[in-house]
């Protein structure tokens, strides 16, 4: 067993890229895809980088591929939206060195704002797509994807889901196959997608997909397991595992390639079984396709389009087995919260105190929407806080927007907030944008970004200066505040929102979890001085707890940030030992 390793699906994808001879890997972090590129970066043979966003990452990947290198680009499902523009056209140009694009879906929305199905992208961009069902397949399918990419001159997508990306199973390690760079040949008819060339390429794309549709009937990644023929199931990805668990005797057709799907194999399978089910998470994509061929199947009539599936669900729906599942009693929910010591907390405390509204964005600070901070009003997608703020001003006027700010993190600002801010300046807005600069990409687990001064490979690089950047795009009023000093934040917010010009406040303090070596001296409550006013509870700090009517600070949680001490009027919150 020594050569078998327990690997996250994402780690296995990285291993697959390494073994396939990939030399360039590019991404923007996004749960559940993030670890793919972090693990790839550990291989010296592979150049790996974070790009500012997914569109840029894919463009870098396309350039790398066209110049001849085997290249991998990774993103989460909503990242594919950002990258959709180059995605639809790289389907036309095709590739030179193999190009594989990982899209990680999140059924159940464990850490996402919607539940979209990336198979739609593969279909509508006319790109073949594979979907593995565990870590071992994740590694093998990456290698297979590169072969398909180069054989058919096409980018290939791989769909993962959270349950594949973030579960661990055994993987057999193999050696790397070094693949020489392909020769770059200038070919404007293939690589310059202006209308005349693109029309010709569209014909090529159609021929290619027809060929793959024919060939995929013999692809080894599509497998048939014939057992009892009274029940047949067509499935893919992690639902395959649930089917095997729940229906060990059923016949199963597992689609390793999820676009296009093998018509002959499916027709043949359908003819051999009595009742045919489709078990696919999210959208009825197989189901609609297979029904259009006149084959009778049962799918979303009994299965949901929402959330993750489970063996329990498959058993219940197909066996109609009345599972006597004990339903848990109503217990207090435990939503994730901003960490004790999080620098964002102080800003939300002030906004709440001043009764300001805020357009919000994607990051840890989104958690500030929940009680007791209730610091943001909206959250749509990366960069949306800035654009939406401007839209509100144009709809409701200058007085209205003085009660509003836009909130965005440093990484998100670079991802897609900059253009929104340029828009505010260009179109003579007066909005105030607060950049919560915690010197990292916090929510996905501390990836570097252009504002941190480090690359993915850990090298020092130029630090994007957010103050100078704001000045250079036309913001005259830019100020930096310490989020642990509520008075300073309050003054800045009051003054900047009153100004009839666009302004930027940068609340700057590193993420609490960045410096693991820092000695944390917890605070405690001096019970003699405490008037039980519960002001400190308004911070929503998990370390401050109300035990039988008395405030206490939990020393296993307190980070020693001192924000609560700064807002206590009675000086009742003191550092331990003082």
């Amino acid at each position, binding site marked *: *067993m020594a050569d*078998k390793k*327990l690997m996250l699906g994402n780690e296995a994808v990285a291993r697959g890229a390494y073994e396939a001879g990939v030399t360039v890997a590019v991404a923007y972090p996004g*749960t559940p895809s993030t670890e793919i590129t972090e693990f790839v970066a550990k291989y010296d043979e592979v150049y790996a980088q974070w790009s500012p966003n997914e569109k840029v990452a894919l463009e870098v990947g396309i350039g790398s591929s066209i110049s001849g290198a085997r290249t991998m680009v990774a993103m989460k499902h909503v990242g594919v939206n950002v990258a959709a523009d180059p995605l639809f056209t790289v389907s036309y140009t095709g590739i030179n060195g193999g190009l594989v694009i990982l899209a990680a879906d999140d059924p159940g929305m*464990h*850490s996402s704002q919607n539940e979209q199905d990336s198979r739609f992208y593969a279909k509508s961009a006319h790109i073949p797509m594979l979907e593995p069902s*565990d870590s071992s397949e994740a590694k093998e399918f990456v290698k297979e994807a590169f072969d398909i990419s180069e054989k058919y001159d096409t980018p290939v997508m791989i769909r993962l889901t959270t*349950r594949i990306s*973030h*579960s*661990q*199973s*055994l993987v057999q390690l193999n050696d790397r196959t070094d693949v020489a760079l392909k020769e770059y040949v200038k070919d404007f008819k293939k690589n310059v997608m202006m209308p005349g060339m693109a029309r010709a390429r569209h014909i090529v794309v159609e021929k290619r997909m027809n060929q793959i549709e024919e060939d995929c009937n013999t692809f080894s990644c599509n497998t048939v397991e014939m057992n009892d023929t009274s029940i047949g199931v067509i499935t893919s990805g*992690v639902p395959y*595992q*649930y089917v*095997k*668990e729940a229906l060990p005797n059923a016949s199963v057709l597992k689609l390793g390639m999820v676009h296009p799907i093998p018509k002959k194999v499916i027709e043949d399978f359908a003819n051999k079984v009595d009742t045919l089910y489709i078990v696919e998470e999210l959208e009825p994509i197989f189901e609609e396709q297979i029904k259009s061929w006149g084959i009778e199947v049962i799918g979303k009539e009994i299965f949901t389009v929402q959330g993750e599936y*489970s*063996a*329990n669900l498959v*058993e219940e729906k197909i066996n109609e087995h009345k*599972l*006597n*599942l*004990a*339903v*848990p*009693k109503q*217990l*207090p*929910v*435990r*939503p*994730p*919260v*901003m*960490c004790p010591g999080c620098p964002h907390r102080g800003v939300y405390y002030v906004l709440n105190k001043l009764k300001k509204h805020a357009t919000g964005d994607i990051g*840890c600070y989104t*958690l500030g929407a*929940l*009680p*007791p901070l209730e610091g943001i009003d909206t959250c749509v997608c990366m960069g949306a806080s800035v654009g939406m703020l401007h839209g509100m001003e144009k709809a409701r006027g200058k007085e209205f927007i003085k009660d509003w700010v836009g909130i965005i993190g440093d990484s998100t600002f670079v991802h897609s907030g900059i253009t929104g801010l340029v828009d505010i300046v260009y179109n003579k807005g007066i909005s105030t944008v607060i950049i919560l600069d915690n010197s990292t990409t916090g*929510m*996905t*687990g501390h990836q570097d970004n252009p504002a941190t001064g480090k690359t993915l490979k850990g090298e020092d690089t130029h630090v994007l200066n957010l103050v100078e950047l704001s000045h250079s795009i036309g913001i005259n009023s830019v100020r930096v505040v310490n989020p642990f000093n509520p008075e300073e934040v309050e003054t800045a917010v009051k003054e900047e929102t009153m100004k009839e010009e666009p302004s930027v406040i940068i609340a700057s303090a590193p993420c609490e979890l960045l410096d693991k070596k820092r000695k944390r001296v917890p605070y405690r409550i001096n019970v003699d001085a405490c008037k039980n006013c519960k002001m400190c*509870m308004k911070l*929503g700090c*998990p370390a*401050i*707890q*109300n035990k039988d009517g008395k405030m206490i600070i*939990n020393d*296993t*949680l307190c980070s020693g940030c001192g924000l609560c001490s700064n807002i206590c009027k009675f000086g009742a919150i003191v550092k331990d030992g003082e």
Partner: protein
Amino acid sequence: METKNILVVGVGGQGTLLTSRILGNLAIHSGYDVKLSEVHGMSQRGGSVVTHIRYGDKVYSPLVEIGKADIILAFEKLEALRWRHYLKKDGLIIVNTQEIDPMPVIIGAAEYPEDIIEQLKKEDNKVIVADALKEARKIGNFRVVNTVLLGLLAKNLDEDKDKWETAISQTVPNKTIDVNVKAFEAGYNL
């Protein structure tokens, strides 16, 4: 071997994932097929976290089915109650008495249930209650609560103790091996 199903539950930041990785490595050493899966919302601290560990001759689903867990190892009392319905009849639940208030409790919108241990004992299962935080503090590091609990779990599984210590050494950061082995012993001897 029939597949063994274990759930490790707790609060984000308590080290449930590290603990399940140790279990995963132990299963590999014993020559089993194994799958692990962590289920949580976002990657911050403070949310409810559950890790599924399954090992045996052949494992399909990375998730334990409801009502089929052999053992639940709960790092926090309320979380023990939240996930109890995954336990099979006559299964074992090991529960740490540590309480971490969720935000709705902190802001007074919900109450922390008072009789959790009694509720757990009412069902058809075995319950072991431990104050692992106290043991961890005795060792001088409250962060090793998870390894104390792992020791307690090890005592209730059939694998050699040596294998456990190897799995711990291979999983935790080098400089914390000693304190973790000490915590494991403390839990094993509880």
